[in-house]
């Protein structure tokens, strides 16, 4: 009898440990922890592209998505390993831990990063006609505002690298083309840790294909971190009509890391590449 009891305990022990196998870290989620931004139902989303008074597409959303959050390679439509990272950049990406994303400390996501919160295009109109186009992100101080200059200017020669870079735009038929240079190297392109350098240059081609969907054909060029330019494709979904951005101040109550004892490794070092580009670790 005693041996039967001992056997049962062993069996129970085994099954408990099997059940306790940790699920895929990306796949496990408590229900109240998940984020929620509604998108427009299909019957509304399939409607026609709205137009501005000048006939251009009205790009007003608000939108959700249109970039990558977890993995720019997979989300952009590439197969595993297709992102042409230089060896040092691949080594750095593989060494980075999701726990240490700069974004977790309320820094901006930059391009082509997205989070689960909405954002919007604002097409300004001045006394001289259509003016600067703005991208506004709900995600407050971690997202902020991008200025897309539409007046034909060039990128300045002496750009100080910044989180969102310098953006100039133009229309190619119904597609808004945004050319951006002057990024800093302080953000990660995804939570996987895909790195880039200050040489990064991006071209976004935004096309609203119906009321509810906007594609982003995205050219990523960074000779400092990639062996060649690469083409990625993303899509944004519109929120239901009447939706508005809300206030989101990330630094208001950010208790990230305390529950798990994660240290803020950037407190002393600041944000930026952990290695000199090209340096093999």
């Amino acid at each position: 009898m005693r041996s039967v009891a001992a056997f049962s305990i062993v069996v129970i022990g085994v099954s408990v440990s099997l059940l306790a196998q940790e699920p895929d870290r990306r796949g496990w989620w408590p229900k109240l922890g998940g984020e929620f931004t509604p998108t427009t139902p299909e019957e509304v989303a399939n409607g026609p592209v709205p137009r501005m008074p000048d006939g251009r597409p009205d790009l007003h959303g608000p939108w959700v998505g249109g970039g990558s959050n977890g993995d720019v390679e997979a989300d952009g439509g590439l197969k595993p390993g297709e992102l042409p990272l230089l060896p040092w950049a691949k080594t750095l990406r593989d060494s980075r831990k999701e726990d240490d994303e700069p974004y977790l400390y309320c820094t901006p996501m930059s391009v082509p990063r997205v989070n689960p919160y909405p954002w919007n295009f604002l097409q300004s109109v001045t006394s001289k006609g259509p003016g600067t186009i703005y991208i506004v992100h709900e995600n407050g101080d971690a997202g902020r505002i991008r200025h897309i200059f539409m007046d034909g200017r060039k990128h300045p020669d002496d750009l100080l690298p910044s989180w969102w870079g310098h953006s100039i735009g133009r229309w190619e038929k119904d597609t808004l083309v945004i050319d951006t240079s002057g990024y800093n190297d302080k953000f990660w392109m995804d939570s996987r840790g895909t790195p880039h350098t200050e040489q990064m240059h991006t071209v976004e081609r935004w096309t609203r294909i119906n009321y509810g969907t906007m594609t982003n054909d995205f050219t990523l060029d960074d000779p400092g971190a990639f062996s060649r330019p690469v083409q990625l494709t993303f899509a944004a979904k519109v929120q239901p009509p009447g939706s508005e951005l809300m206030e989101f101040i990330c630094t208001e109550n950010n208790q990230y890391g305390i529950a798990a004892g994660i240290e803020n490794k950037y407190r002393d070092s600041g944000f930026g590449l952990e290695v000199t580009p090209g340096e093999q670790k």
Partner: protein
Amino acid sequence: MRAKLAVLIAGLGVVAVSAPVLAHHSFAVEYDPKKPVEGTGVIQKVEWTNPHMRIYIDVTEPNGTVTTWNLELGAVNSVLRRGWKPADLKAGSTVSFKGYGGRKILTRAAADALTLPDGRSFTGASGAPDAPAKP
């Protein structure tokens, strides 16, 4: 056939919308799916804040000591968009919770479900506070 296809596509649309989206951060980084926790206590404080909403719940242990649980929810914007209102969660009311403990500090937990005394349950999956449970 075309009608069937439309239904199928509509169904896919619903699945895509309700699929979980990545939060401000991955909960698995901080919280341990191997440490399910639950309890009943009195709401001490509700923080309708970003990047995450928090509810502090005082749970009286059998020996009389009080443990304050710090429960993390999604972004307050997500919670409001699900249809919750500040009046739904008030300090002083009793609430039962289920969640997952912090990897280092168990009482800092990720909330998975909350149940109010009137039977309403917040699971976060339905898009709005659930209807009161039938007696």
